[in-house]
C-alpha cells in the first residue's frame, strides 16, 4: 500500500518536474506578448479579489438609506432632497467619502463590496460554465473523430442543430421553465456552449487519429479508451486551453446580458444585476452602472488578450 503510494507520488512529482520545463517554455513565449501578460496580471488580481476581497469589504447586502447614492470618493454630486414637512424639493451637495470608496447605490449599499462579490459570481459563472462546455465539447469532438462513420455523422449533425438553435432564446426558455437560479443559468450556458469546442477538437483529432503514433499505440495493444485519453486528448490540450480562455469572457457577458434584461438570479449580486439596477438611476447615480460596466469590460479584455497570447505561444508555426 505504502509502496504504491510512493509510486504514485514519485510519478506525480516527476510529472510536475517535467511539466515545469514545458510550462517554462510556453511562459517564455507568452511573456513576449505584453498585452497577454497584462491580461494575466489582471485575471490573477481579479481572482485574488474574488477570493479574499469579501473578508475586507463591508456587507454588500446591508442597506443604509441615510447614505444612499453617494458618489465615489473624490467626486461630488447634487442630490435633490424632498422635505415632507415643508413640501419642498431642495438640492444638496453630496461628497464621496473613503468609507465608500466606490460610492453607494440607491439603497445605500457599498459599491466596492458589491463589485467584489460580483467578481466572485462572474468568475464562478465563467469558469464553471466554460468547464462544462469544454469537457462536453472535447469528449464529443474526440469521440466523433476517433469513432468516425455513423457516430461521427450523428454527433456532428447534432452539433449543427445546437449551433443553429438561437442560444439566447434557449437560455430564456430554460429560465422561464426552471426560474432564474444561478445554478441553472450556469448549467444552461455550459450545456449549450460546447459546439465550437466540439468542432475544433474534432478537426484536430481527425488529423491526429491517422498519425503513426496512434496506429503504433494500437499495434502495441492499446485499447480505444487508452488511445483517446492518453494519446488524443493530451495532444489537443493546448488547443483546449486557448478555446477555454477565449470563451470565458463570452460566458461572463452572457450572464451579464441575461441579468441586464432582468432574467438574472435576483439573489446574487452579479455585475450584470448591478448594471441592470444602475441603468434606472443613470441621471442621479451614474457610477452604479459604470463601475460594473468597467469591470466587465476589463475582465473580458483581459481574457481575450491572454487567450490571444496563449494561442500564439502554443502555435509552433507562429514567430514570436
Amino acid at each position: 500500500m505504502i509502496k504504491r503510494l510512493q509510486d504514485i507520488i514519485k510519478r506525480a512529482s516527476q510529472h510536475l518536474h517535467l511539466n515545469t520545463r514545458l510550462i517554462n517554455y510556453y511562459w517564455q513565449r507568452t511573456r513576449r506578448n505584453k498585452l497577454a501578460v497584462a491580461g494575466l496580471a489582471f485575471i490573477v488580481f481579479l481572482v485574488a479579489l474574488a477570493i479574499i476581497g469579501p473578508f475586507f469589504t463591508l456587507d454588500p447586502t446591508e442597506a443604509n438609506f441615510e447614505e444612499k447614492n453617494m458618489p465615489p470618493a473624490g467626486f461630488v454630486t447634487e442630490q435633490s432632497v424632498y422635505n415632507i414637512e415643508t413640501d419642498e424639493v431642495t438640492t444638496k451637495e453630496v461628497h464621496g467619502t473613503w468609507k465608500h470608496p466606490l460610492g453607494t447605490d440607491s439603497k445605500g449599499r457599498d459599491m466596492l463590496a458589491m463589485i467584489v462579490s460580483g467578481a466572485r459570481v462572474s468568475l464562478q459563472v465563467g469558469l464553471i460554465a466554460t468547464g462544462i462546455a469544454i469537457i462536453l465539447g472535447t469528449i464529443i469532438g474526440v469521440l466523433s473523430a476517433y469513432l468516425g462513420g455513423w457516430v461521427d455523422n450523428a454527433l456532428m449533425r447534432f452539433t449543427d442543430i445546437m449551433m443553429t438553435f438561437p442560444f439566447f432564446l434557449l437560455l430564456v426558455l430554460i429560465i422561464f421553465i426552471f426560474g432564474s437560479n444561478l445554478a441553472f443559468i450556469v448549467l444552461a450556458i455550459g450545456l449549450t456552449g460546447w459546439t465550437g469546442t466540439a468542432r475544433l477538437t474534432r478537426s484536430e483529432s481527425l488529423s491526429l487519429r491517422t498519425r503513426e503514433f496512434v496506429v503504433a499505440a494500437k499495434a502495441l495493444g492499446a485499447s480505444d479508451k487508452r488511445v483517446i485519453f492518453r494519446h488524443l486528448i493530451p495532444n489537443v490540450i493546448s488547443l483546449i486551453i486557448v478555446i477555454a480562455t477565449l470563451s470565458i469572457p463570452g460566458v461572463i457577458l452572457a450572464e451579464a446580458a441575461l441579468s441586464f434584461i432582468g432574467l438574472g438570479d435576483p439573489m446574487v449580486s452579479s455585475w450584470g444585476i448591478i448594471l441592470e439596477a444602475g441603468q434606472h438611476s443613470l441621471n442621479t447615480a451614474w457610477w452604479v452602472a459604470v463601475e460594473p460596466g468597467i469591470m466587465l469590460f476589463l475582465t473580458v479584455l483581459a481574457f481575450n488578450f491572454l487567450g490571444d497570447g496563449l494561442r500564439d505561444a502554443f502555435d509552433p508555426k507562429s514567430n514570436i
Partner: protein
Amino acid sequence: MNNVILKVSNLKTYFFTSRGTVKAVDGVDFELRHGECLCLVGESGCGKTVTALSILRLFDSPPGEIVDGQISYDGLNLTNCSSEQLRQIRGKDISMVFQEAQSALNPVLTIGDQIIEQIKLHLPLNYSKAEDRAMTLLEEMGIPSAERVMSYYPHQLSGGMKQRVLIAMGLSCDPQILIADEPTTAVDVTIKAQILDIFRDLKTSRQMSTIFITHDLAVVAEIGDRAVVLYGGKDVETAPVSEIINNPKHPYTSGLIECLPDISKSTGKLASIPGTTPNPLKMPQGCAFHPRCPKAMEICSHQEPLETVISKEHRVNCHLYK
C-alpha cells in the same frame, strides 16, 4: 528449425474506396519460422505494409477489409478472432515497429511514460518494476544514460535514438514475433548499420522471429534468412536470401537485383525496371508484372501464373518455369 509460428495463406485485403476496389493484398502466402528473419521485399505500393497491418488488423476499416485468407498464429485465425483477443495479442505476442520514429512516438508524452505504459498494459508489474524494465530495455538497445532519456520528450532525441526507443517499446513485453516496417528507411547509413546490428543481436540472443519489411535488397542480404518478393499485392517469389540474391528466378526479382548499384562496374547509368508499379485500381490482366517484364510471353497477359516449385525452399509464380 522448421517449426512455423505464423502462417499467412491466401491473404486478401481490399480497400473499398469511392473510386473502386483497391486490391492492396491479393493472395499472399508465406510462413514465418521460429527464430528466423523473414524479409518482405518489393517496391512502394506492392502491398508490403498492408500485409503487415493485416496480420494485426491495424488498417482503417472501413474502407479496408480482409476478404479472404487465413493468418494462423498459436491455433488462432487472426483474420476472424474477436477484436479483444487481437488486442491481447498486439504488443504481447506480435508487436510492430514503425517506419518513421518521429511520428510513431507521441510528442506530448515522455519516452519513459510511453514504454512504461506499454509494459504495464500487458505485464502484471507495478510502476517501479516497469520502470526498471524499461530502463534495461533502453540500455539493451544501446542508448547511453537511459535514465535521463526516460524523462525526455521525443523531440529531444535524434532519429536513430527514436528508432531504438521504438524497437525497445516493441520488445517490451517479450513478443514472439516482431514486425518491423522499414525501420531503416528514415535513418542515415551509420544509424542503419547500428539498427541492423540490433536486429541481428535479437536473432541470436532472443531467438526472435522477425518479419522485416524493406525495399532495400542490401538490407535483405545483410540480415534476412528468407525473403518473400511481393508485386502487385501477390507474392511472386519465396526463397532463402542467398537464393534470391544469387539465383533469382522471377524476372521482377532479377530486375530488382540489377537495380542495385555496383561500385566495381562503372557503367555510368543506373539500371532500372522500365515502367511504374501498376495502378492498384486497374491491375493488368494475367500476371501483374507482364507490361514491364522483359521476358513476357503471350500467355502472361491473360493467365495468372501459378506457383512453381523450383526446389524445396524456392517457389516462384511465373510462366517461365512450367
